[in-house]
């Protein structure tokens, strides 16, 4: 028979390859950092490359969902190769800090550059860009004067006119968590029930589809992160939807952060801190936010021109740590209210 030897050869090769790959140790060079990032490759790699170019420090990274990365950190324990955990929302940073996976950092630079409400009070994580979640509307169907707050979208006047994204997305969980913080659980639940009663159609899987639905006239208003809107209008300037800054004068626009912290078991925590400080100012900070049309957290850094064109707004200044602390409660509230 001719076949078995070929099979054997292939098995041998596979085993050999696997063995070689597993024996080669993850060598920790003196000047290198390992980042576990939930911020995706196309947004983050240019930043790392820039850092390597400026400082000679090599940055290795892996990407995955934040919850998976946190679970991974916990499983690896003190042998984890990671120095920095980076996420795209405050919830998982709060969770990682709660579980003792991040270490406190004392840094005058970070404390100066990152506003107080966008970082952990104990210095375990810091926000490096803001993601604003506000109201979007169809200008042919809605007079912006009729818009005011997130809460007002629960009013029966919006019956059959509201579109929402799924409550599975952390952005909505954070928004509702912040509402629990400001309104209390009972009042927040009334608002969410009002939203559900006003839905024009089933909830959407993503903000982009929601914006398309507003533009196409399936619904009149919705709640979205601004950069999704930005991505669309960058390619289609005549896109039939506008942004409205919610809750001006009554708490401000809900913002979440994309942020990072130093891993508790990091053997390079000084180098990790230097990287975070570098990320909080100058070109790095500008690029970090602008590459995804987000808002920088450092108020002294320039925004992308398209982002500037949406005008200034007053953000909520409640510490984003609440988004994590109240997230589980928000999820339960939305389940109770039938917000899927």
């Amino acid at each position: 028979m001719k076949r078995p030897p070929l099979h054997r050869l292939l098995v041998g090769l596979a085993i050999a390859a696997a063995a070689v790959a597993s024996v080669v140790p993850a060598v920790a060079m003196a000047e290198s950092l390992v980042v576990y990032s939930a911020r995706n490759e196309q947004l983050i790699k240019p930043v790392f490359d820039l850092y390597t170019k400026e400082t000679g420090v090599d940055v290795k990274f892996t990407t995955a969902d934040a919850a998976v990365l946190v679970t991974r950190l916990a499983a690896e324990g003190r042998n984890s190769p990671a120095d920095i955990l980076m996420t795209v929302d405050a919830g998982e940073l709060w969770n990682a800090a709660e579980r003792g996976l991040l270490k406190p950092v004392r840094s005058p630079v970070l404390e100066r550059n990152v506003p107080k409400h966008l970082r952990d009070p104990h210095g375990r994580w810091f926000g490096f860009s803001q993601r604003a979640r506000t109201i979007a509307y169809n200008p042919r169907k809605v007079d912006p004067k009729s818009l005011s707050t997130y809460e007002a979208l629960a009013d029966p006047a919006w019956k059959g006119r509201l579109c929402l994204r799924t409550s599975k997305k952390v952005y909505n969980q954070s928004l509702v968590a912040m509402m629990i913080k400001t309104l209390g659980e009972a009042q927040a639940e009334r608002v969410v029930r009002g939203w559900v009663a006003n839905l024009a159609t089933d909830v959407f899987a993503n903000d982009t589809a929601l914006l398309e639905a507003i533009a196409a006239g399936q619904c009149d208003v919705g709640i979205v992160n601004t950069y999704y809107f930005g991505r669309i209008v960058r390619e289609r300037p005549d896109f039939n939807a506008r942004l409205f800054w919610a809750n001006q004068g009554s708490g401000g626009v809900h913002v979440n952060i994309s942020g990072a912290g130093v891993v508790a078991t990091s053997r390079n925590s000084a180098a990790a801190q230097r990287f975070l400080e570098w990320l909080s100012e100058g070109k790095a900070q500008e690029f970090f936010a602008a590459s995804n049309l987000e808002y920088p957290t450092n108020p002294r850094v320039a925004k992308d021109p398209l982002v500037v064109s949406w005008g200034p707004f007053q953000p909520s200044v409640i510490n984003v740590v609440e988004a994590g602390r109240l997230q589980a409660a928000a999820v339960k509230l939305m389940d109770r209210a039938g917000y899927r």
Partner: protein
Amino acid sequence: MSSFPARAAAATTVLLLAVPVAVPVLSAFAAWAAPAADVWSHQLQHVLPRAGWNTALLVLLVGVSAGALGTTLAWLVAAHDFPGRRFFGWALLAPLALPGYVMAVVFAGALDFSGPLQTAGRALLGDTWRLPPVRSIGGAALVLTLTLYPYVYMLARVAFESTGARALEAAQSLGLDRRAAFRRVLLPMARPAIAAGIGLVAMETLADFGVVAAFNVDTFTTSIYRAWFGMFSLAAALQMAALLALFALVAAGIERRLRGRRGFASQRSSGGMLQRLRLSPGQGLCAAAAASMVLAVAFVLPLAQLLAWAWQHAAVDLDRRYLGFVLRSVALAASGSIVVVIAAVALGYALRSDRRTWLQSLGRFASVGYALPGTVLAVGLFAPIAAMNGWMQDWLDVRWGDAAPQLALQGTLLTMLLAYLARFLAVGVGPVESGLARIHRNLDEVALSLGARGPARLARVHLPLLRGSLLAAAMLVFVDLMKELPITLMTRPFGFETLAVRVFEMAAEGEWARAALPSVFIVAAGLIPVWLLARRFTHVT
């Protein structure tokens, strides 16, 4: 009766192969030591009743429709001559190459209110015209059926072509017409294969997250992620996953029953070519049209959309790195499918030669990984390996102090391949078992009397007869691995990027149009084995 060494070998094989899946499943069950009472009482009251009902309905819908579609197409292609038959023979497998999570986004976008179909519909038929709600169980069932029917199609077709000729002859000699022969003889004979196909479809539906998320259907799997990602309770997520594994085991038991008695087996698997019925020109045209329609909806149109998106972004995103993405994806999928198919043969053969009940049950258990959500399985396997790595590291540190090398076993290809084995063994076992089932036991006895036993008998008697099934298994696993995401994402070494990882990078930020480019490459790479296999089909059967 097999000898003691043979029984010991069979038992050892099955035990070893059950380990990779036992680790995550047992860690899921272990989570029950401390039930997350708070999360559970909430889930039971507000989430699980709906999610459970949705899951059952979805599995039923997809199982029945993929089973019917796959079997019908297999019978059409295997037993009839019509224009384009050879082309459709392999082209109907093509939807396998499209990742379900990508297809779901294409369909959800195209069929929604703001999509081209409804926009055109409103322009033509008036502003109040609507399709039935797209983001629904119906939408998810449609996409899952279109991406998963090829499992049934492929296994049923191998079954029809390898055993059909003799059976059809015999049935017709007994006076049955072709239709009656199909219904009363060939279909029952192909039952193990069809049941195996539907079993795979059902398990993949249970484990699916991408498609149901795109259509916003709450299922058991989405509830698992809600507990983990939303409520920070990995414990509750693992506890739910343990229930899912239990459910899959029960379902596998039922599927055993569905396969029925295993008495159907021919002396020679290649009893000559199945005599194909030449359809009249009119019928032939209808057959070709029907096959074209399935192919258009399940493959050509979604691919066209992906190509259009890919074209928009190729100028920026397509660069030299893609060569690496493709090579790594193909190498991973190829080595993974070799490992899985060899394991499947070992398992199938051990279960065939040793019929003890506990061993059979353990064998079923080894396949249950396919029904678990990929991320849960990845975590369940990753955590123990990371812990083991920790112990070894501690030992090294004690011995060498600061000079000790840093281990990272959990992020290596070895861990990846183990996890692939845990997850995809079922995909390999399905075709191999139904292939083995078609080989008559008399053949084993004859081989034994001629002095061929154990591995020699496998190599010289069974493998040649199994070639079609082995190729089918290898292809199915290869294509599945090309699309695999959660395990690869979690266990890959630093900087190890594949095509599926690229899709994740873009999709995680909602940039679906940019995810099209790597998706197109996944489809292209997945089509190669489909096409190769199709060419072998004509030689093999």
